[in-house]
């Protein structure tokens, strides 16, 4: 089916869904959502409790080197005699909060830029649009590498690079949401009542597009983790001896026979990324409960669009935007 067809059907579905906004719990019952939430919760706990549950100091080079997983250290030790399990736990303290920060900053920056571009229009939109396009023209990872390298390798610069390369996505989504919302009659009605444009942006437009943007953000946490660990792997992020998953894997490359060095951090990354993707997907389903199962079903017309609709349908705009964005990855 053509993309626009599925977009149409999702649009329609989205409309139905928007009524279900107040019933978060129902949509969280899907198994994937539960798995995602459980994994994420485990990692959050691990990150918070790392200092207490880690058996060793992550930096102490006190154990025999390159011992395979066994009783003394359940995930083995690395070439400097550090406990992999302890480093893994402490790594969660580094990567997860930074990825969260990256996503939050990129979201705020992108949303503000996109909202201004969409709302003000005219040359402002033109300029901001060009800027967004400029950033999106480069492959994300390569651009991030270039920026991180030129700022000098450090974790914070990696985060900065991540923000620089990911905000345009939020800007684009936000802009199109704002464009379709700002011509809604209720926005005009509040302008006619004497609201300033900024106030109507804040009370009429932003609350109605927050959902979609949050879905995008939660899907992006996984990407951000991949980006940060990737940069660290390349030596552009975390610097030794910091316990960080990407640099742990990169250390593992020198001892390719010691499988445990790479496999465990790899699994850590995999599970976290997966968990956030599941959460993001479920969040989207909360806003749009039919979308995953019924993507093909509804046609343009008869479908779930409804008189109960709550106005525009930022969710569908989002879902289409997201699917476009996801394509290249």
């Amino acid at each position, binding site marked *: 089916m053509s993309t626009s067809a599925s977009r149409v059907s999702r649009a329609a579905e989205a409309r139905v869904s*928007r*009524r279900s906004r107040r019933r978060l719990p129902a949509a969280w019952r899907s198994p994937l959502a539960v798995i995602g939430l459980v994994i994420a919760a485990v990692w959050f706990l691990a990150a918070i409790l790392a200092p207490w549950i880690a058996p060793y100091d992550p930096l102490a080079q006190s154990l025999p080197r390159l011992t395979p997983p066994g009783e003394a250290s359940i995930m083995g030790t690395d070439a400097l005699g550090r406990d992999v399990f302890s480093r893994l736990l402490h790594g969660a303290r580094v990567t997860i909060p930074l990825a969260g920060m990256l996503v939050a900053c990129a979201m705020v920056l992108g949303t503000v830029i996109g909202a201004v571009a969409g709302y*003000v229009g005219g040359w402002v939109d033109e300029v901001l649009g060009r800027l967004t396009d400029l950033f999106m023209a480069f492959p994300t990872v390569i651009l991030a590498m270039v920026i991180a390298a030129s700022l000098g390798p450090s974790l914070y610069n990696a985060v900065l690079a991540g923000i620089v390369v990911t905000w345009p996505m939020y800007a684009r989504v936000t802009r199109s949401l704002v464009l379709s919302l700002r011509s*809604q*009659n*209720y926005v*005009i*009605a*509040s*302008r*006619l*009542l*004497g*609201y*300033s*444009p900024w106030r109507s942006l804040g*009370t*009429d437009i932003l*609350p*109605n597009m927050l959902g979609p943007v949050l879905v995008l953000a939660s899907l992006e946490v996984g990407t951000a983790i991949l980006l940060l660990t990737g940069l660290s792997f390349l030596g552009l992020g975390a610097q030794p001896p910091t316990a960080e998953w990407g640099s742990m894997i990169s250390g593992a490359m020198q001892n390719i026979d010691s499988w445990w060095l790479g496999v465990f951090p790899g699994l850590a990354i995999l599970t976290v990324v997966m968990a956030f993707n599941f959460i993001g997907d479920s969040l989207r389903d909360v806003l749009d409960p039919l979308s995953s199962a019924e993507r093909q079903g509804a046609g343009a017309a008869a479908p779930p669009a409804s*008189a*109960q*609709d*709550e*106005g*525009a349908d930022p969710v569908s705009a989002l879902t289409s935007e997201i699917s476009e964005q996801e394509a290249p990855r």
Partner: protein
Amino acid sequence: MNELLKVEDLVVRYGGMTAVDGMSMSIRAGEVLALVGESGCGKSSTARAVVGMERPAEGTVLFRGTAVPPLGLRRRRTEFTAIQMVFQDPNSSLNPRKRVGEQIADGVRAAQARGLNSARPDSWLEAVGLQPEMTTRYPHQFSGGQRQRIAIARALAAKPDLIVADEPISALDASSQASVAAMMRRLCLEAGAGMLFISHDLSVVRLMADRVMVMYRGSVVESGPTPLVWSEPVHPYTEALLGAIPHPDGRGVLPAAPAAEAPEEWASTLPEALSRQVETR
């Protein structure tokens, strides 16, 4: 003369398409002017130009002698919040994430900003025939007709001097239609406000409006006092409009449908059909 709104030679274009082609009108305080006409003839476009949503390609829109500024990036000056609009599409005219009470309160605040008193939101809800305790509900919890009434309540709560009402009661059942129409008209007359009442429903227009303008393809083809236009239409299009009203007689007679191609004479200009007056002599 107490002229509230004066529109002169208004032209509204969308790209190359001319939706409103040189229409003029004026509304006095305490007067209801109805705009009727074919679907797509430019009624809503006129309304949007009047409130400043659409920038006129040509012509002027004056409210109390001052040009109505387009809704741009500036906050609307307080004196122009005396112009309120009820939109044709009741669904998108309410913010889905705001309780309806708060939305009506926005209207109340606009009135207060102009130094006027306005009743509390719950009594406005009552005025349009809904229960006062519904203020805490969200728009999606209402039926189509109820939403339309909430939008009317919000506009009226702002105590406007000029109400532009685009099909405000078309989603209502006959009895609520009659009562809401009566209420709008009463409030309008009491407050000395003017109303531009857009509708395709001639039977309602006849009850509501002092004067009526019939539009066809972007221009006014007939205008004059409602009873006169109703009883003695001059223009062929007006005649056709009146002839196509279905009668609730239970006989199952389909109203005459116009031929596939609209007759040419509908688009003709009859000077004697414009600005008709009741002959007094």
